[in-house]
């Protein structure tokens, strides 16, 4: 545009440019302002509940809400109390935190193991009727987890797994593996079958192909699937609440809910626990965001 104008005689250029350029510049400025406003709005929208958690945790007076927008006298004593397990509802906080980690890591490892074995068999070995398994995985993936909760709890009593972390691990692995199979299946298409064939010609057994070729090449997808399973187990609440009742088997999520059942209401302690409990997922999110987003871009659709 500017080149064309420069070539034209200066007088006409000025006449031609004036009416067209000004609205365009104004429109560009307007769209920039609108984008900035939208951005500010989104920032407030996203951070308001997070800020509310901080506001409540930093309030030194436990029982009364202050009704102010800023913490009147910010006070980190509630975090210190949680750290030192100073209150009867959080006597076993670190033990319960360890339980949550145990639950998340066990779910992650089992999901990656079971999911990668199944997807190897389904997509690399071309089993007849293998699609049946894929379809069942897809169905499980679509199913809302809360709808299975009541029969699941009954069945865990039948299996004599009630009040055991492994009951929750079983539930979480059940709901995470279908996603793992679908994602790994999708990612596996990028790895040429010729590699498997070459290894077979060299005399490798399917187990060796799985261990030496499939797993190393699938590493990025395995990380995505593992992170997904870990966050699912960490962030899920219903099954932990229903399946874990004794204090020693409880996870942090169940412990937080105990505050609602108690007569006293030290909400600042509860929010301090909630913030500490949110730190691992935040750290994982900011550290491994690339893998999580890549997992979605591969086609996986699940929250």
């Amino acid at each position, binding site marked *: 545009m500017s080149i064309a104008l420069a070539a034209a005689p200066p007088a006409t250029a000025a006449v031609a440019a004036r009416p067209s350029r000004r609205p365009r510049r104004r429109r560009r400025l307007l769209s920039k302002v609108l*984008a900035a406003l939208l*951005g500010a709005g989104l920032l407030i929208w*996203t*951070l308001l*509940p*997070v800020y*509310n*958690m901080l506001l409540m945790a930093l309030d030194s007076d436990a029982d009364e*809400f202050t*009704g102010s*927008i800023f913490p009147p006298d910010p006070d980190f004593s509630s975090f210190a109390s949680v750290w030192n397990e100073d209150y009867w509802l959080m006597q076993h906080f670190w033990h319960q935190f360890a339980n949550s980690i145990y639950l998340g890591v066990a779910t992650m490892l089992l999901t990656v193991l*079971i999911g990668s*074995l*199944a997807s190897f*068999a*389904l997509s690399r*070995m071309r*089993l007849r009727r*293998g*699609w049946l*398994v894929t*379809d069942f*995985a*897809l*169905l*499980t993936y*679509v199913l*809302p*987890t*809360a709808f*299975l909760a*009541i*029969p*699941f709890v009954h069945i865990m009593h039948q*299996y004599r797994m009630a009040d055991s972390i492994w009951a929750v691990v*079983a539930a979480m*692995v*059940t709901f995470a*593996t279908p996603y793992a199979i*679908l994602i790994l299946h999708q990612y596996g298409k990028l790895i040429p079958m010729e590699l498997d*064939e070459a290894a077979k010609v060299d005399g490798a057994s*399917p187990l060796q192909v*799985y261990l030496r070729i499939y797993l190393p090449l699938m590493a990025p997808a395995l990380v995505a699937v593992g992170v997904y399973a870990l966050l699912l187990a*960490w*962030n899920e*609440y*219903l099954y932990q609440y229903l399946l874990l009742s004794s204090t020693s088997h409880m996870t942090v999520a169940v412990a*937080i809910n105990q505050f609602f059942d108690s007569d006293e209401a030290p909400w600042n302690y509860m*929010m301090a626990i*909630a913030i500490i409990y*949110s730190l691992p*997922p*935040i750290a994982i*999110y900011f550290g491994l965001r690339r893998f999580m987003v890549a997992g*979605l*871009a591969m*086609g*996986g*659709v699940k*929250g």
Partner: protein
Amino acid sequence: MGSTQQVLGFRQSATAGESQRPPWQIRLQGSDTTWAIAFLVPYVAVFAAFVAYPVVFGLWMGSDPALYGLLFSDPRYLLIAANTLLFVAIGVNVQMFLAFLLSGFFMDRSWWVRSLLAVFLLPWALPGLVVFTSIHFMLVTQWGLLDSLWRAVTGSDGPLFLVHAWSAMAANIVAYIWKWLPFWTLIFLAARMSIPQDIYDAAEIDGASGHRRLLYVTFPLLANIYLICTLLSSVWTLGDFPTVYFVSSGAPARLTDVLATYGFHEAFDFGYPNLGVAAMMSALPLMIPLIILLMRRVRATGVQL
């Protein structure tokens, strides 16, 4: 049944396409089949023990017709069914539409939009228990954060959100959108990024720009994934538990429960597990068509979930 055959039909045509590969890739040798089955055993065992058996057990629990008579005679049940429909219809559609628009905003790759995206996705990674509890406390009394903000701006006391059923239900829906909007925005963003730039260039030459580009180029290309995401989100929202359980907790007077929380209370607070299962199963007449539609759509278009 008809849909199953439909599904089978697509599957068969897919394998027919693959059979053009050299035969050694398809036929497994005897020992390889054993290996493949061995690799599948863990997943099949998990599926049988923790999906198939609970599903069958649940169907058996909710199989007594008398349960449904009992359910429909509860005057609250109709209200709860209506709440669930409202929650799904408004929550899912508003969320999808906003996600679609916002994904366009996040296509901008300038540094501040990219950092904003990183912050915007945070609700997706946070535990539902934690954020919904926080939102509950923002609304619950006149000393909550939202009311404090209201007072700071207008000088008068704010509305009590959880005192009226309508505003409490609206709070549930808004909280649900807050939690899941980032996730769907990301899905649409990925879909938008996979649209080749040439298409936009061609459209520009043909004179499509601005809102026309959105309406006639982007939207038709994303229509399919938009539909699939809407169906999927509807199924999940139909069974959503934590939002209502924590944000309104059914307040006021259990008027804002949805099927999942109603079933939960019937089963675990009042000790009628079969009635709880029946309440959730009463969503099946809506859920099964949604799932069938979804599966057919996924098969027909080859979109990977």
